[in-house]
C-alpha cells in the first residue's frame, strides 16, 4: 500500500473539513488548509526519502467500475491510481512547499476565508493529483479539478477585472483539457486497435500478448507503446499535434498565452504563487510525460517546430516583459520566457536538454513563486504593482527589496541560483540539437537581464516616490516564505545534484523508451 494517494488526498480532506467549519472562525480554515499542505509535504519528503531509485513507486490503485465490451471486444476499467517517479517527486515536493508557504505567508484575501481555503486546498490537491496520476482518467479528473478551482479562486478573490480574467482562464484551459482528453483517448484506443489489427491481419508484426488491451493505465501504456512504435504510425502525428496544442495552451505559449498575464494580473498573491509556481508547469509535465514518454518519435519528428516555438517564446516573453508596466505582467511574461526555454530543451531530445527542462520547471516554479510573493507583499504595502508609481523602495523596505533583487537575479540566470543551472543544461541540450536557433534563443539571456534590472531599478532604486512613513519591511511571518524559497533556489543552484540525480535518471528513462 503506497502513500501516493495521500499526497493529493490530504488537501482534499482539508478542503472537505473547511466546509464544516463555523463561518465566524476565519483563521481556522487557514489552519486546516495549512495542515493539509503540511501533511502533503511530509508525505512527499517521506516518499522521496524512501524512493527506490527507479520506476514508479508508492503506487495506489482503485478500480471503480468496468465498462464491458467498449470497443472491439475490449473491456475498459475506470479507476484512480496514483504513484510517483523521479520526474514527479521533486515537482510534487515543490508544489507542497509552495502551497504551504503561500498559505502561511500570504494574508487571506477578503471575501470569505472558508470558501477561499476550500478552493485553494482543492487547487493544490488537483495539481498534486495531476503530478501523481498514473492513470489517464485520474489525470483528467485532476486536470479538470485544477481548472475549476483556479477559476473560482480568480473569479471570487481577484482584482477588479477578475470575471473577465477568470472566464478567459476557464475557456483557454478548458480547451487544453479537451485536447489532452482527445490525445489520451486516442492513445489508448489506438493501442487497443493495434492489438485488434495484429490479431486479424497476418501481415502486421506479432505483438507481445500483454500489448493492446484497452487500458488507461500509464505504466502499461508506456510499455505497450514501446513495443508498438513501428506499427501504430498513421495516427501518431495527429495525436501528438493535438497533445502539443493542448500543451501550448496549458503552458501559455505564444500565441495561446493571453490568458496567463490577465489571470496573474487579477488573482491574489497566494493564487499567483500556486498558479505561476506549479500550475503553469503542468503543460511541460504533460509534454515530458506523454509527449517524450509515449510518442518520442513524434517529438523527434516535430523537433524543429518545438524549437522554433521555444525560441519565439523566449524572445516574445522577454520583449513583452520589457514593456510590461506592472510586476504581475512582467512575472507572467518572464515565466512564459522560461517555459520557452523548456520547450527548446525538450526539442533537442537529449539527456542534457530534458534534464535542463526539468530543472527549469523546478527553478521557474521557485523563482516565480518568490517573485510573486515579494511583489505581492510590496503591493500590499504600497497599493500598486505598477512600476511607474513605485520607486526607491530599498529605503523603507531593504529586506523585501533585497529578496526581490535576489529573485530577479535568479530569474535572469545568475550562477549559483537554480536559474543558471537550468539554463545551462537546457542550452547544452539545445545547442546539440538546434545550434542556430539556440543562438537566437541565447539572446534571451541578455533580454532577461534587461527587463528584470530595468524593473528593479524602477521599483527599488532611485529616490523614493511614495511617502516612506507608512511602509514597513517584511513581517516575521513573511520571512518564512522568503527564506525557504531563497534557500531552495540556492540549494538547487549550488548543489544541483540534489535533484539532478532523479532528473537525470528520468531523462534517461524517457529517452530509453524513445531509443
Amino acid at each position, binding site marked *: 500500500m503506497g502513500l501516493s494517494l495521500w499526497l493529493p488526498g490530504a488537501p482534499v480532506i482539508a478542503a472537505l473539513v473547511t466546509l464544516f467549519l463555523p463561518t465566524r472562525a476565519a483563521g481556522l480554515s487557514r489552519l486546516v488548509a495549512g495542515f493539509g499542505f503540511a501533511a502533503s509535504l511530509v508525505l512527499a519528503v517521506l516518499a522521496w526519502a524512501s524512493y527506490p531509485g527507479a520506476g514508479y513507486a508508492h503506487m495506489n490503485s482503485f478500480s471503480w467500475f468496468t465498462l464491458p465490451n467498449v470497443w472491439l471486444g475490449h473491456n475498459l476499467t475506470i479507476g484512480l491510481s496514483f504513484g510517483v517517479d523521479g520526474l514527479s517527486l521533486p515537482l510534487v515536493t515543490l508544489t507542497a512547499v509552495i502551497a504551504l508557504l503561500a498559505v502561511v505567508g500570504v494574508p487571506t484575501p477578503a471575501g470569505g476565508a472558508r470558501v477561499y481555503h476550500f478552493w485553494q486546498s482543492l487547487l493544490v490537491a488537483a495539481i498534486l493529483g495531476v503530478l501523481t496520476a498514473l492513470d489517464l482518467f485520474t489525470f483528467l479528473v485532476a486536470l479538470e479539478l485544477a481548472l475549476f478551482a483556479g477559476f473560482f479562486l480568480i473569479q471570487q478573490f481577484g482584482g477588479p477585472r477578475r470575471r473577465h480574467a477568470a472566464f*478567459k482562464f476557464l*475557456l483557454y484551459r478548458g480547451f487544453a483539457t479537451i485536447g489532452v482528453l482527445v490525445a489520451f483517448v486516442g492513445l489508448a484506443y489506438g493501442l487497443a486497435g493495434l492489438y485488434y489489427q495484429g490479431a486479424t491481419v497476418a501481415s502486421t508484426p506479432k505483438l507481445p500478448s500483454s500489448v493492446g488491451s484497452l487500458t488507461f493505465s500509464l505504466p502499461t501504456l508506456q510499455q505497450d507503446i514501446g513495443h508498438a512504435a513501428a506499427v501504430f504510425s498513421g495516427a501518431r502525428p495527429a495525436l501528438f499535434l493535438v497533445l502539443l496544442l493542448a500543451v501550448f495552451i496549458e503552458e501559455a505559449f*505564444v*500565441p495561446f*498565452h*493571453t490568458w496567463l498575464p490577465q489571470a496573474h494580473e487579477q488573482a491574489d498573491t497566494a493564487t499567483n504563487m500556486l498558479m505561476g509556481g506549479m500550475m503553469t508547469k503542468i503543460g511541460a509535465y504533460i509534454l515530458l510525460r506523454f509527449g517524450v514518454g509515449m510518442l518520442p518519435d513524434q517529438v523527434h519528428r516535430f523537433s524543429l517546430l518545438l524549437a522554433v516555438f521555444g525560441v519565439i517564446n523566449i524572445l*516574445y516573453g522577454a*520583449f*513583452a516583459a*520589457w*514593456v510590461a508596466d506592472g510586476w504581475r505582467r512582467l512575472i507572467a511574461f518572464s515565466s512564459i520566457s522560461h517555459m520557452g526555454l523548456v520547450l527548446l530543451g525538450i526539442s533537442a531530445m*537529449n*539527456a*542534457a536538454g530534458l*534534464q535542463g527542462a526539468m530543472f527549469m520547471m523546478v527553478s521557474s516554479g521557485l523563482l516565480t513563486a518568490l517573485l510573486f510573493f515579494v511583489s505581492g507583499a510590496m503591493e500590499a504595502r504600497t497599493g500598486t504593482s505598477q512600476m511607474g508609481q513605485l520607486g*526607491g523602495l*530599498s*529605503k523603507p523596505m*531593504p529586506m523585501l527589496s533585497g529578496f526581490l533583487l535576489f529573485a530577479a*537575479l535568479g530569474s535572469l540566470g*545568475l*550562477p*549559483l541560483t537554480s536559474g*543558471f*543551472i537550468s539554463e*545551462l*543544461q537546457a*542550452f*547544452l*541540450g539545445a*545547442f*546539440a540539437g538546434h*545550434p542556430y536557433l539556440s*543562438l537566437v534563443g*541565447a*539572446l534571451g*539571456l*541578455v*533580454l532577461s*537581464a*534587461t527587463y528584470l*534590472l*530595468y524593473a*528593479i*531599478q524602477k521599483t*527599488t*532604486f*532611485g*529616490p*523614493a516616490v511614495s511617502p516612506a512613513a507608512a511602509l514597513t519591511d517584511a513581517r516575521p511571518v513573511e520571512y518564512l516564505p522568503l527564506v525557504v524559497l531563497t534557500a531552495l533556489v540556492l540549494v538547487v543552484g549550488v*548543489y*544541483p*545534484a540534489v535533484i*539532478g*540525480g532523479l532528473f*537525470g535518471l528520468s*531523462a534517461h528513462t524517457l529517452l530509453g523508451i524513445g531509443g
Partner: protein
Amino acid sequence: MTDWVWLVPLLPLAGYVFLLLSGRRTPEAVAAGVSVVLTGISCVLSLVVFFQLGPEPAGGQTWLFHWLTIGSAHVDVGISLTHLNALMLVVVSLVSVLVLLFSQGYMHGDERFSVFYQYLNLFVFSMLGLVISPNLLQLYIFWEMVGLCSYLLVGFWYFKPEAALAAKKSFIVTRIGDTGLFVGMILLFLGTGGSFDFTAIFQAVSAHTLHLGWMGSQGLTTLAALLVFLGAVGKSAQFPLHVWLPDAMEGPTPVSALIHAATMVAAGVYLVARMFPLFQASPPALTTVAWIGGVTALLAALIALTQRDIKRVIAYSTISQLGYMMLALGIGAYALGVFHLFTHAFFKALLFLAAGSVIHAVDTQDLFQMGGLGRKLPITRWSFLAGALALAGIFPFSGFWSKDDILTAAWQRGDMALYWLGLVAAFCTAFYIFRVYFLVFTGQSRDEERTVGAHEGSWVMTVPLVILAALATLAGFVNTPWTGHGLERYLEHDATASAAAATPVQESLPLMVFSVVVGLLGIGLAYLLYGRKSDAPARLAEKLSIPYAISLHKFYLDEVYYHTVVVGGKLVARLVRALDRYLIDGIIEVGARLVGVLGLALKYTQNGQVQAYGVIAAFGLVVVIVVAVLGVGGVL
C-alpha cells in the same frame, strides 16, 4: 603549503557570511577589521603559495569534486593551481586587502557600512574563485558572481538615479559579452564531447578533435575563441562594449579601485590568458584580439584627453591599458600581457585610491573645481605622481617595463600598425594623466570653498597609498633584462602557456628611449597647457572644436548605442505589446464576441413556452426513429 590554497578564496567568503549574519548594525571597526584580517591572511597564503610554486617546473595541481552529471558527462568543481593562477591570487588578494583597508576611512559614517564590506568580501571571494577555477564552467560561475558584485557595488548608492542607471548598464553590457562566453563554453563542451575542463579543451584543440556535426575543428576553434573573447570584451571593457566602465564611476571610489585594478576588468584579460592555447590555435581570433586591443587603447586614450571628471579620466585610462594587455595577448606575447596586468593592478589601484583620497577631501569629482591640493595632501600627491609616472611609462617605474615590452614585441613581430596605435596611445596617456596631476595638485585652487578644508585622511587611507606607490614604482623589476625576465620564466612553467612564452622579447635600447621620449613629450605638453595659469586649453578647444567635441562626447558611442540598440529593442518590445494586445488577444476577443452574439441570437428561441420546446423534441424523436428505421447504424 600549496595544499592550503583552498583557504584563499574561502576566507573572504567567511567574511561575507559573517557580515551577512551579523547584520547591518555591525560596528564599523568590526566589519572592516574582520574583512581586512581575513583577506590579509588570504594574501599571505597566496604569497606563500606563489613562492612555493616557483621552482616546480610542471604545471600545478588540481583538486576536483563531483558536482553534477549532465547527460553522461560529469561536471566537477574544484581548485586548479597553475603559475598564472598563483600570480593572479597574489595580485587580487594584495590589492584587495589594501582597498579594504582604505575603504574603512573612505566609507566612514555611511549607514550601510557593513553592507558595503559584505559586498566587497563577496567581490574578492568571487574573483579569487574565478582565478583558481579548474574548468570553464566554474570560471563562468564566478565570472557572473563578479559581475553581480560589481552591479551591487556600483549601485551601492542606489538612491542616486545615476548610480542605479550605471549599475544596470554595467550588468547588461557585460551580460552581452557573458552571453558570448556562455555560448562559447557550450560549444566547447559539446565540441570536446562533454567536458568543461581546460586541459580537456586544450587537448582537443591541439589534437584537432574539436568538432560538432555542423562545424569542423578549425572553424569551431575560431568560433569558440571569438565567443570567449566576446566575454572578455564585455568584462574588460574593450571596444565596442567599453561603455559601461566610465559610468560605473558612480560607485564609491574604493569599488572603482577594486573593479579597475584587481577584480572585474582583470577577469577578461585573465580569461584570454587562461584560454590562450585555444586562441593560439586560431590565428584569426588572435588577430581580432590584437586589433580590438589596439583600437581600444587608442580610442580610450583619446576620450580621456578631455574628460572633466577625475574618476572618468582614470576609468578611460583603464580601458586603454586593458587594450594594451589584449594587444599583447593578441600578438602572442602571453607573458607580457599578464605582466602588464600585474603592474597595472598596482598603479591603477594607486591612482584610484589617490583620487578617492582627493574626492574624500574636497567632495567633488570635477577637475576644474580642484587645484593646488599638492600642499594640503602631500602623501596623496607624491603617491599619485608615482602612479602617474608608471602609467605614462617613464623609466624606471613599473608601467615602463610592461608597456614598453608590449610595444617592442609588436615592433619585433612586424605589426607596425599596432605599434603606432600603441605609441600614439602612450603619448595621449602621458598627456591626460599629467593633465589631471597638474589640474589637481599644482597651481591655485579654482574653488576655494571646497579646497580650503582639505586634509589627508587617517592612516587607513594613507598607508595603502604608500604601499601601492612603492609597488607601482618597483613592481616592474620582476621582469627586466637585469632580473632575467623573472616573471616570464615563472609563467613558462605553466604547461598550458609554455609554447606562448617560448619567444621572449629582445629589449632594444632605441625603442625604449623612443617611447620614454614620447611619454615625456606628453608630460611636457600637459605642463604647457595646464601646468601654468593660461587660457591656452580653452583657445585650443575652440580651435579644434570638432575633435574636442568628439573626444568630450566619447565618440558619441553612448548616443549611437542608445539610438540603435536601446531604441530598437524598445521598438520591438512595443511592437510585441501591440501584437499581443490587438492581434492575438484581439482575435480571441472578437471570437468571444462572436460567440456572444450568436448566443444573443439563439436567446430568442427560449420563449418560455414549454410546449414549443416539446415540439422541437418531438421533431428530434421522429428524426431519430426514422434514421434508425432506415437502418443507419443497424440498431433495429
